[in-house]
């Protein structure tokens, strides 16, 4: 069905003129593709500002003592950097951008089930983002609690915690509604013949993600509301001075925030799966195993939150229970890695930029995941908890995982989104520099952590100096790579690329339609009569 693509009489979604023109036409559009792109532009802006904050932090850490800023500024920076990156970039991340753009197309639908709700989610996202970022400028200075808002410090500090927490609450709502929309869409709008087990695997990961969003986010929402109530009304929930239990706050926070890391990684894994398949021109190895592992990650991931709290004073029983379940959650990830590798076997691999990003993803994801195993084990976590080791772990797996997947997906679907082609050679050069810088930046942090340098440290002892220098230099290399990648993509958009409907010979439905897609995706809803990836 991928062959016949005689269309072009309908305007594509980028050019389409509805009731309103220009910017307003976008801001009022309920077209899932436009909403996806609006997420994309907003997210890139936030991402770049978060990136600049990261760069500033690294500059400060290039040597002991004060370099650029005071401790208060630094503490504000890592808080806002964490908030921006987590709540504004990676949690919506791949799901909100590429899920919105391609989920309906991949299952053969004209839009999501609730297009207006979808637009509403975007507005919530923007409002939440404004409130979070507003906490920088309004009130008593940027919050300085870390993105975790641990009580009782978050209840005591003079800074603008209420604002930041409220913003995170709103963002949570946006995330819930997106998840809800996707789940209903997958239940209701699959094209005729598109059975559950024929859905592309990216959709399956979004399905799992949707459930986590629905069931985990409200818990942190209510926790944040309690913090707001405690700060504004002076009632006691978590402040030990009023009888509260600060450890309960940590439980509630991580009941959400651990599953949230799987909100970040699942869609990323889905996108990587699509790319690996397309570029090896071969159906996936172990479709069912991939589906089961996605759902298993979503499910088991719900019960491991305590591994962030091994040193908090939890009961010993709880500690080993959480440690044990944490190790179990690594298994489905392992299954995915093995299946990706096996998919390449006897393929006919097309060496293009998105594929290289995907391989980069697998590599850094493994390093991140393996360091997760170190953290999951009790004895070793006692040593490296709250040190630079943890910082290295999550940058490897969040930035390395979700971030790499984001760029991989961007390079993969770019021709579909814009109908343009970028310069593959420059993109590859950018990737190599990016990859080098990335490892230089974050690998030394593992060393620092094992040496014992705590995280959230504005200043450090001279014994930690050398790895910090390497790390800072790495951040510059990474920056150069990132700039090359982004400029290359921007130039492709401006320049005149060739228009191509299916440049990589993909077999999922989005490759069977025009690039860029027309407003309602399909001239007529397709009927599916084969498995998800029918390479012959």
């Amino acid at each position: 069905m991928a062959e016949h693509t005689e269309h072009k009489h309908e305007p594509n979604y980028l050019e389409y003129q509805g009731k309103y023109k220009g910017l307003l036409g976008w801001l009022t559009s309920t077209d899932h593709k436009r909403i996806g792109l609006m997420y994309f532009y907003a997210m890139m802006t936030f991402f770049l500002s978060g990136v600049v904050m990261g760069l500033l932090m690294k500059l400060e850490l290039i040597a002991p003592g004060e370099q650029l800023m005071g401790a208060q500024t630094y503490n504000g920076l890592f808080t806002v950097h964490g908030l921006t990156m987590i709540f504004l970039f990676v949690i919506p991340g791949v799901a909100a951008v590429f899920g919105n753009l391609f989920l309906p197309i991949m299952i053969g639908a004209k839009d999501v089930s609730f297009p207006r709700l979808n637009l509403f989610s975007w507005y919530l996202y923007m409002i939440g983002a404004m409130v979070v970022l507003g906490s920088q400028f309004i009130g008593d200075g940027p919050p300085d609690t870390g993105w975790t808002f641990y009580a009782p410090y978050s209840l005591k500090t003079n800074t603008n915690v209420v604002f930041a927490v409220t913003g995170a609450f709103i963002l949570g709502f946006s995330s819930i509604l997106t998840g809800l929309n996707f789940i209903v869409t997958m239940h209701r709008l699959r094209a005729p013949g598109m059975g559950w087990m024929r859905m592309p695997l990216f959709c399956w990961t979004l399905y799992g993600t949707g459930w986590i969003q629905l069931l985990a986010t409200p818990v942190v929402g209510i926790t944040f509301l309690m913090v707001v109530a405690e700060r504004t009304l002076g009632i006691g929930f978590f402040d030990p001075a009023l009888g509260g239990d600060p450890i309960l706050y940590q439980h509630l926070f991580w009941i959400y925030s651990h599953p949230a890391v799987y909100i970040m990684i699942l869609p990323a894994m889905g996108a990587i799966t699509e790319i690996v398949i397309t570029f090896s021109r071969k159906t996936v190895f172990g479709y069912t195993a991939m589906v089961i592992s996605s759902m298993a990650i979503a499910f088991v991931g719900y019960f491991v939150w305590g591994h962030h709290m091994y040193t908090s004073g939890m009961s010993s029983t709880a500690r080993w229970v959480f440690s044990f379940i944490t190790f179990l959650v690594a298994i489905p990830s392992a299954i995915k890695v093995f299946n990706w590798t096996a998919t390449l076997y006897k393929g006919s691999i097309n060496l293009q930029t998105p594929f290289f990003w995907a391989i980069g993803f697998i590599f850094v994801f493994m390093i991140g995941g393996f360091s997760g195993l170190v953290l999951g084990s009790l004895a070793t976590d006692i040593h490296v908890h709250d040190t630079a080791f943890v910082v290295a772990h999550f940058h490897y797996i969040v930035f390395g995982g979700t971030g790499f997947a984001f760029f991989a997906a961007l390079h993969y679907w770019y021709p579909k989104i814009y109908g343009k082609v970028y310069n593959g050679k420059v993109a590859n050069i950018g990737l190599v520099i990016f990859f080098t810088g990335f490892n230089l930046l974050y690998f030394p942090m593992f060393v620092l952590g094992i040496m014992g340098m705590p995280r959230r440290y504005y200043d450090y002892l001279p014994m930690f100096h050398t790895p910090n220098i390497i790390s800072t230099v790495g951040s510059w290399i990474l920056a150069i790579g990132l700039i090359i990648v982004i400029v290359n993509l921007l130039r492709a958009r401006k320049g005149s690329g060739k228009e191509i409907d299916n440049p990589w010979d993909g077999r999922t439905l989005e490759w069977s339609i025009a690039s860029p897609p027309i407003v309602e995706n399909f001239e007529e809803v397709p009927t599916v009569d084969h498995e998800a990836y029918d390479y012959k």
Partner: protein
Amino acid sequence: MSENNHHISSYKDHLLVLLILIFLTVITVAITSIELGPFNTAAAMLIASVKAAVVLLYFMHLKFDHKIYRITVGIVLAIYAAVIVVTFFDYFYR
């Protein structure tokens, strides 16, 4: 999914369910007013759960809807219960 099975509950059923719910409420108040020690809480929560089940099944129509709803409600409640249990691994053993 449930498009074609239009089960409409009768008014009488609704009233009957209401009576049962009020009756259960009275029982809860009665039971908790006598000293039962720890069983107090257990009894109250048990009856509340029965009431909740009645509301879910009849008022919220789960009994007559497509089974996907029953399954998902069951899974969600089970996950929530498991979260409580896991949390109490900490508090019980401190």
